[in-house]
């Protein structure tokens, strides 16, 4: 918005006339149809961004993962042979990128409760859940302590544990799909999740 003026960009069609199913979209995108590719991206990009942001806690890093993931999808889409779901194929790319970055940054050792926002760095406790510290400081204190514990446990998880937990607890993915995305078995994902829940129970059980 400039000088109080609003710009509204319209596609000229309020709704797309043709609803292609996902396989048709993929085939069209494989044939070079940019519009089909964009529609394919839009089916998944919000959850990809949420996962990356939740794991990395940085808008810049989440944006980098988003770009890299979908550029790789674009570049390698011709190799997609429908031998797994597109979701699984995409999440393999995304989780590998996130795991690499998590390991590279050693996030689990460096992570703080401060995250970057458009208004500058702020504590997570201010941003999620109870935002009314000025009205109820005691509640905010308890809530802040709980958040610190949650952050600490998350920070102590291995990159793989963190990934499994995020995908199950926050993204609601089934263990089978998580196993497929991470290139492992459902049982291995289950064991990984089990270890995380034990750690959470020990750290938070007396607090709730």
């Amino acid at each position, binding site marked *: 918005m400039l000088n109080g003026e*609003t710009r509204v960009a*319209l596609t000229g069609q309020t709704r797309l006339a043709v609803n292609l199913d996902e396989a048709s979209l993929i085939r069209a995108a494989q044939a070079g149809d*940019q519009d089909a*590719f964009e529609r394919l991206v839009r089916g998944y990009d919000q959850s990809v961004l949420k996962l990356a942001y939740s794991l990395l806690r940085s808008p810049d890093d989440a944006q980098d993962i988003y770009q890299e993931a979908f550029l790789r999808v674009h570049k390698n889409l011709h190799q997609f042979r429908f031998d797994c779901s597109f979701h699984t194929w995409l999440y393999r790319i995304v989780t590998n990128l996130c795991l690499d970055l998590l390991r590279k940054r050693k996030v689990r050792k460096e992570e703080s409760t401060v995250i970057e926002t458009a208004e500058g760095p702020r504590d997570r406790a201010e*941003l*999620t859940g109870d935002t009314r510290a000025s009205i109820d400081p005691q509640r905010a204190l308890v809530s802040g302590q709980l958040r610190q514990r949650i952050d600490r446990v998350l920070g102590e998880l291995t990159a793989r544990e963190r990934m499994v937990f995020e995908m199950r607890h926050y993204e609601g993915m089934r263990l089978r799909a998580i196993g497929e995305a991470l290139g492992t078995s459902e049982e291995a994902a289950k064991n990984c999740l089990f270890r995380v829940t034990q750690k959470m129970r020990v750290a938070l059980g007396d607090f709730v």
Partner: protein
Amino acid sequence: MKLACEQVRESLSLLLYGELSFGEEEAVQSHLSGCAECRAAFETERGWHDSVALAKVEPPADLLVKCRQQLRANLPAAAPEGRVRRWWNELREGIHWGWVAKPALGLALVAVGYLGARLPGAPGNETIAEATARVRYVEADAAGNVRIVLDETRPRVVAGRADDPQVQRWLLAAAREASDPGLRAETVALLQGGAGTLDVRRALVAALESDPNAGVRLKALEGLRRHAGEKDTRQALLRVLGADDNPGIRTQAIDLLTENSPRALDAQMVGMLQQLMRREENGYVRERCEKALRLANASAEIF
């Protein structure tokens, strides 16, 4: 299958995640129905699950829009290599030329359609931007002429102040229909200034009650703040109290309903808050609710 307490407690999280097999879930549920200590452990387990769920962080509302714009800008440079390699690989694998020629002809026609549509069609009209096109079908006649039918998508820019009727019409449509929650959130934020008009207020109420994204609903709630004393808005806030699954939004709805006249809650509102007290699981929302009822000299219980 009889389970020991220790086995059951190790399965509680997987039960909450719905990741136990049918038989395992039956055995755990059966144990829970007869064991008070394990039921208490189950509630504790549910408690930390909920607390961790509430600690989820969401990306800033405008980040998705930025990402999409950046991706769109980066895509053309990344495109050709993969397709050229694919064609080359197919040729190397000995695919018959006829197989290659047909899609190649199709692609050539797509390219003709795409490039043709990009030629300036309306010189001097500043509001018409470049179009993209898709070939719907092609047909040839006996004389060798080819007819190509295109589906075009042509971006258009509408500019003006946020309260300009034409701009507002499109903002209302975007708030209602856009598939991108980031765009809906920006649109609803822009509409806040025009909340004095009935159409905008209805759009904000609709977003508050039915938008699937909590960020958009919060923006709508902010937009309705100045109108929290009006009957329609209060009715909507009451419905949100009873239906919204986000505790932050329920809390803010209570605040909006009570901040203007905390001591003058009507019977319907007292009833709604009392009902909320009965079923609300979030401790903070319960506290806000109880405080509102206390200020209105109403009981937190339904007798």
